[in-house]
């Protein structure tokens, strides 16, 4: 205390300033340490990324070395047939696995195809079980199959103009899955099924089919959205015509309600489909 009392005012001021400066320095050191701890993650990321940059250089070199090795190997394989055959074996074994996988799909598909498309039962048996068969027509001998041009006219004249026309099979029953070109010069070819779409003013989608010259419509939106026991299909008569690509035959049938909910409309055209309400279709 005596020391303080003996100090001049100037000394006191200098002493206090020094104390404050020291305090400030201490505070700075503490803050730096604290912040280092908080940013540990950031520091980690930075250091990892620094290492990565080095790695990048190494990897590039490795890659180059690898490329050189590959080139060397290729050159070797040219001169040493044994090595070539080893490489081929490896490739073959990979290929074999892939082929097997593909085959297993096809096996499944074939199994399924026999159930829901061709049926473990034949198409004839399927339609006999699910409908009254009115007629069976050999597709190739049918005089009712329209040409591409005729089918296009039929559909466009009825107002189905917005979507392209597609075909599924040729007359031999080979699957095509092709879109018919509007600009095609020769439209004299015949196909068992033609298909197009129609969207109503209410944005409901219909698919429209021409099968052996007859027109049918599927209210796709209503069928998907409604919880119905069977598919609703529209026809201009009490009959439906189906195509079986395996036998190459058209089946003219009156379906059982458990298989198809058949609705009859005088003319299937854009105007009439547009007028149909959800209640009328699903009711």
């Amino acid at each position, binding site marked *: 205390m005596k020391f303080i009392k003996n100090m001049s005012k100037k000394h006191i001021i200098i002493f206090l300033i020094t104390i404050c400066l020291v305090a400030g320095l201490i505070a700075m050191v503490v803050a*730096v340490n604290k912040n280092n701890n908080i940013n540990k993650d950031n520091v980690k990321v930075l250091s990892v990324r620094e290492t990565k940059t080095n790695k990048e250089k190494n990897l590039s070199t*490795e890659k180059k070395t690898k490329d050189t090795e590959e080139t060397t190997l290729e050159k070797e394989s040219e001169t040493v047939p044994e090595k070539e055959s080893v490489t081929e074996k490896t490739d073959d074994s990979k290929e074999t696995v892939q082929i097997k996988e593909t085959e297993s799909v096809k096996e499944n598909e074939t199994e399924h195809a026999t159930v829901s498309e061709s049926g473990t039962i034949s198409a004839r048996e399927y339609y006999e079980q699910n409908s009254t068969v009115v007629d069976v027509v050999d597709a190739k001998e049918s005089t009712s199959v329209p040409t591409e041009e005729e089918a296009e006219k039929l559909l466009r004249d009825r107002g189905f103009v917005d979507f392209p026309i597609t075909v599924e099979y040729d007359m031999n029953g080979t699957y095509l899955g092709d879109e018919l070109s509007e600009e095609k010069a020769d439209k004299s070819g015949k196909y068992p099924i033609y298909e197009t779409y129609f969207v109503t003013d209410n944005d409901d989608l219909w698919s429209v089919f021409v099968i052996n010259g007859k027109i049918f419509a599927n209210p796709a939106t209503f069928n998907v959205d409604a919880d119905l026991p069977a598919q609703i299909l529209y026809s201009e008569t009490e009959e439906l015509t189906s195509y079986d690509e395996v036998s190459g035959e058209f089946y003219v049938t009156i379906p059982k309600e458990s298989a198809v909910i058949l609705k009859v409309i005088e003319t299937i055209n854009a105007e009439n489909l547009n007028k149909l309400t959800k209640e009328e279709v699903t009711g």
Partner: protein
Amino acid sequence: MKKKLTKALVLGAMLSLTMQSVSALAVTEPNIVNDDPMIVVSLGDSYSSGEGIETFYGQEKSLANKVYDQDWIAHRSTKGWPALIQVPGVSGTMSNYKTSSSSNASCQWYFAAASGAVTSNVTTTKQSKYINKRQGNIFKHTDYKYTAYLPKQLDVFNNINGGVDYVTMTIGGNDVGFADIITECATGSTYLGTSNLNKKLNKIWDNMDNTKADIKNVYEQVENKAGYDAAIVVAGYPKLLDKEGKGWLISEEEATTVNANVVLFNDVIEGLVNECADEGMNIYFVDVEDAFDNHEAYSDDAWINKIIFGAKSEDLDRTTIASAYSMHPNATGAVAYANCVNSKIAEIENNK
């Protein structure tokens, strides 16, 4: 004397505070300077763009403006799984760091995936998107009908300064078109003989060698553009249909067949990724099949949209047969996807 002492104390305190402020500034500075930012690039098809999960980037704009917005045209979703990617050490998700041009930010996310993209749209050819939208009412409306073009996705790398850390993608799905096949079959009729699921699936496998070559080409070209150091994370696809099917519309056998084909396609993708990894590529496969189990379309707790006929309000083409939203993951599905990818990224970071 007292006054002078007080002045001195105040001066000292101010000096002390100034020193502390200076020290605080010195500490925060490293966060601002980023010589090596985290750069993530998301490429791919509609599963990566987040098709079907609104809101899309640019959606808030007027129709007249958004038809020119590439993000909207590509249907890049603010809630798609790439937007939810997290990288350890980077706070938040990629949606916080979306970047479209050269940037100095500490983390940059470039989103170039586009709905409908096939392999060639990533590597070589621009992607055309037909837009047919109508604004107004039947008395007065404006039709926007034209074809917009998205640049090939690899062009995104031209905008990037710095080393790319991650490239994420799903690609190949549109080349095979499982979702389109399901939609087409739903518009057909088994009774009439027009629903040809198996025939359509067979066609995919007939062309699989070409598809495989195209997918591998994407990986190689991405590596060339992104650099050997970038980790390429390729996600697979989920099984699409509830195993029981959907009544008469999709039989149990049809659902099984479709799902089995998706699994096999994932195996093809995984095989290609492994092949590339064996050749020295920094590439990883992310399996999402298990994550989506029991959450397929038409299941009780579906994470994948069912078939939606007609266009939704944000669909590009109002005259489309089915909405592009059909058979795509919903918001919950995107979270599941992101979880799978984030696990892989965390694993990659841990192994560094």
